[in-house]
């Protein structure tokens, strides 16, 4: 749910990074945080366990510029990927404007990817959203790892709707900003469409 403030001339939108445990959602946000101009970002908040697994969410506010005099801000959130944190994932999806699904390219994680994708659909539907109509992109992360599935295979399994898709190595930043820009653009285009 976007928030528009006419007095401070701001538009705020919410993007959620979703995906199986250890697929690199937090790493995406950390890379964005480290590579963004200090004036354009707020503090990154990570609610994590002692072993640095996401417990509730990571949060990063990001300002990307002005459209027609309105400061455009994106609030980036990650969900906890581990299966048993489902209740938390549902909460974080509330009010979402756009979703990035981060898949783990390693062959061994194929099942975890599809499970997480099914879970995303179910949890969105519970909130009244439909993944087929929501601004949404897919990222195939960990392309630098051994024993990975081809992008074609991953795409055939996870991207049946043919939304924009990106190969990535979040630890080095490859594909990270391309993914973010793509979903941000889809969100703004959808808001424009809704206003027309």
């Amino acid at each position: 749910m976007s928030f528009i403030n006419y007095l401070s001339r701001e538009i705020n939108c919410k993007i959620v990074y979703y995906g199986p445990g250890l697929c690199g959602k937090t790493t995406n946000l950390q890379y964005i945080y480290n590579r963004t101009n200090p004036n354009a970002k707020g503090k990154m908040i990570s609610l994590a366990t002692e072993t640095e697994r996401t417990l509730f969410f990571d949060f990063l506010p990001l300002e990307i510029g002005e459209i027609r005099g309105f400061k455009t801000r994106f609030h980036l959130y990650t969900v906890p990927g581990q299966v048993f944190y489902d209740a938390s994932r549902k909460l974080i999806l509330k009010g979402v404007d756009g979703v990035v699904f981060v898949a783990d390219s390693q062959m061994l994680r194929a099942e975890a990817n599809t499970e997480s994708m099914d879970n995303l659909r179910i949890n969105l539907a519970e909130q009244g959203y439909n993944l087929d109509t929501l601004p949404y992109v897919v990222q195939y992360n960990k392309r630098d790892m051994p024993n990975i599935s081809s992008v074609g295979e991953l795409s055939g399994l996870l991207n049946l709707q043919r939304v924009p898709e990106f190969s990535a190595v979040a630890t080095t930043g490859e594909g990270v900003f391309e993914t973010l820009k793509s979903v941000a653009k889809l969100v703004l285009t959808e808001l424009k469409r809704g206003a027309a």
Partner: protein
Amino acid sequence: MASPQMVMYEEEFAQVQAVTDRLVQDANARVVFVVDKNGQLISASGDTGDIDTTSLASLAAGNIAATGGIAQLLREQEFATQYHEGVTQNVHIQVVSSRVILVVIFDNRTSLGLVRLRVKRANEHLTRIFEVVMAKTQDPFQNSPFAEITDDDIDNLFND
């Protein structure tokens, strides 16, 4: 879309700000925030100088969301009020008309009783204001800034 966007116009924004400004004074609080349930900061009053307001808004919303989840498990409608007691500072959190969150940060210059009393009155005022905000937001004839935005505007945002 499952939940409509919230649009805050100057008139209502000024009214919300007036309520929170007054609450700071009446409750002798340090800071008062109004936050959307999705974590967007709507207004802030008082001594906000050294507080990261954006992060605070997101965490307060996360807090309310988590408590709402517990309420659902217990088949309770919602836990509309929360209180966190610290060594030198305390936080009182109130859900207003199931829509926004009123956060009051206070220290030992005041008391929980006074804060509760003043929050109750502010809650009533804010409820009325946000009824108007939501009615305006859902009115299809209200102008949205997005209506005038072109594809080029969006593209320009992402040109490095």
